């Protein structure tokens, strides 16, 4: 199956603003596997907004606990 994971980075014309959006990642992987983007741009981190996929991780844990 093709890997559908994608990183989309948008650059403001002020030379500072950089916006990173990830697609196809589930849970913490979105920040862990794309951390190199921030590292390359010297920690231009800014505020993070998480999508529903990130929060899905907690849900997985809870499900696991109930079924175990």
């Amino acid at each position, binding site marked *: 199956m093709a*890997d559908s994971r994608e990183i989309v980075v*948008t*650059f403001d*014309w*002020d*030379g500072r603003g950089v916006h990173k959006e990830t697609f196809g990642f589930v849970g913490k992987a979105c920040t862990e596997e794309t951390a190199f*983007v921030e590292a390359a*741009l010297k920690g231009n981190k800014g505020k993070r907004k998480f999508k529903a996929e990130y929060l899905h991780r907690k849900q997985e844990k809870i499900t696991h606990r109930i079924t175990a």
Partner: protein
Amino acid sequence: MSHTLEFETTITNAEALVRALKRMGVPEHLIEVHETAQRLKTYHSEEYKKAHVIVRRDIDRFLSGAHSDIGWERNEDGVFVGHIDEYDYRIGMVCDKEWQQKLYTYCNVETLKIEYERQGMEYTESLDAQKRIVLRAKFKAPVTVNRIKTHTK
């Protein structure tokens, strides 16, 4: 008496800076990259500023009318500081705020492209509805033993 202005940047990658300068239309033959900082040629300033990445003034084309080179010196933290002659800057000959912002935007873009290339990732560059640069990169799934199919009988 003129002097040299210093501009803080967040640039750490000389290659990205050179690529950004080219995107800004600076002719390649005017761009110099040095391991050891070299002196900038100035007319008005008596300061002797040095830089690792230098754009030499060209009386015929780029920086036409300017009196001094422009340069970026790498500081102890590895971050480049821009040096621009105050007179040239004041009369609007080179590198006004808008020019620098555009350059540093291209620097960010090129820095990330270099990182994608280093990791062997495919990417595309486009403009969004607000004319901002967008880099779209695809992840490659790591090759595991389970995914390798052998075709031997």
